């Protein structure tokens, strides 16, 4: 945008029509100003935009109120759903606590009472570690079990 175009437009768009006219001293600047005027007159040739009359205002305001009320709740925003989810969460927490506190005893590790094998020549051994892990293994000196 050229500087002279800026200056003419600024005055044309402000309350300085005479100043804009005064700047348009050459055919180019005059054509530019005429173009601005033409567009403005064209825009003014359009019908006035409609307006909301005082008599229509209550209906307009009512629509706003309805929109606010609908937006406040929506389908999943209704307070009842908040209550339901809160209740479900509270129930789950309570149930978990109940289950933990009411167990019969600690889970005990398996205890190997007897270990046998039908493989001839093989021996079965069992070992229970301090942490309660039971280990059972079969030894065979002669035959490769795999």
């Amino acid at each position, binding site marked *: *945008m050229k500087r002279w*175009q*800026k200056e003419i*437009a*600024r005055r044309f*768009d*402000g*309350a300085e*029509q*005479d100043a804009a006219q005064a700047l348009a001293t050459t055919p180019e600047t005059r*054509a530019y100003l*005429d*173009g*601005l005027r*033409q*567009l*403005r*007159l*064209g*825009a*003014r*040739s*359009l*019908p*006035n*935009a*409609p*307006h*909301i*009359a005082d008599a229509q*205002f209550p209906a*307009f*305001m009512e*629509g*706003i109120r309805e*929109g*606010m009320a609908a*937006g406040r709740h929506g389908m999943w925003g209704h307070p009842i759903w908040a209550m339901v989810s809160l209740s479900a969460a509270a129930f789950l927490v309570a149930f978990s606590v109940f289950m933990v506190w009411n167990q019969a005893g600690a889970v005990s590790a398996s205890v190997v009472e007897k270990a046998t094998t039908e493989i001839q020549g093989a021996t079965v051994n069992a070992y229970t570690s301090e942490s309660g892990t039971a280990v059972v293994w079969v030894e065979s000196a002669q035959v490769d079990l795999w």
Partner: protein
Amino acid sequence: MSVALDTALWYEDLTGVPRMQDPAPVQMVEDTDAALVARARTGDFAAFETLVRAYRNEVYRLAYHFVRDREEAWDVSQEVFIKVYRSLGSFRGEASFKTWLMRITANQCKDYLKKGRVKTVEYNDAVETQESGETSGSGRDPARDAQAKEIGGAILKALDRLSMKHRTAFILREFEGLSYEEMAQVMGCTIGTVMSRLHHARKRMQASLRKLGFTEEK
């Protein structure tokens, strides 16, 4: 049936040159708006309703210029005020309430048009032109009306070819009569950008009008 005129932004001086009205006392209006916004923030719905009553037509008119349908503009305007009510807490008062409101309106219209929810129409049971100020019915010059309608239609077609930011600039200046400062606040840019967008909007509209045969190549 007579139709109430909107407050005229333009008048012609003694030499016939169109001039813009001197702006209303802005400071008093802004103080009132600030007080109403403050009360509305605290839940005073009556204060909010006063704001809606005061600015409903600024919003409706701007929406209409974008969507060009009365019912759609009505819906958009209501959505704007709903959004405004929910966003009152974020209004800091750096810009005037009016420009903040118009910014929300322009953004809402942009979203509306993007979603393709509007079928734009050229004319919508228009009652009067800005120039003639006459109501429809007797006393009108049919030839002049037809010419005005043709030019107006061309302007709207040219406007449709603009990008959203250029269209916004043209509408705010030529239809709403906003100053560059106000436009900058509405569009969220500098005055330099406003002037640039307006310049390009006008240039492209003139090119479109030339193609449509309404202006001569100079």
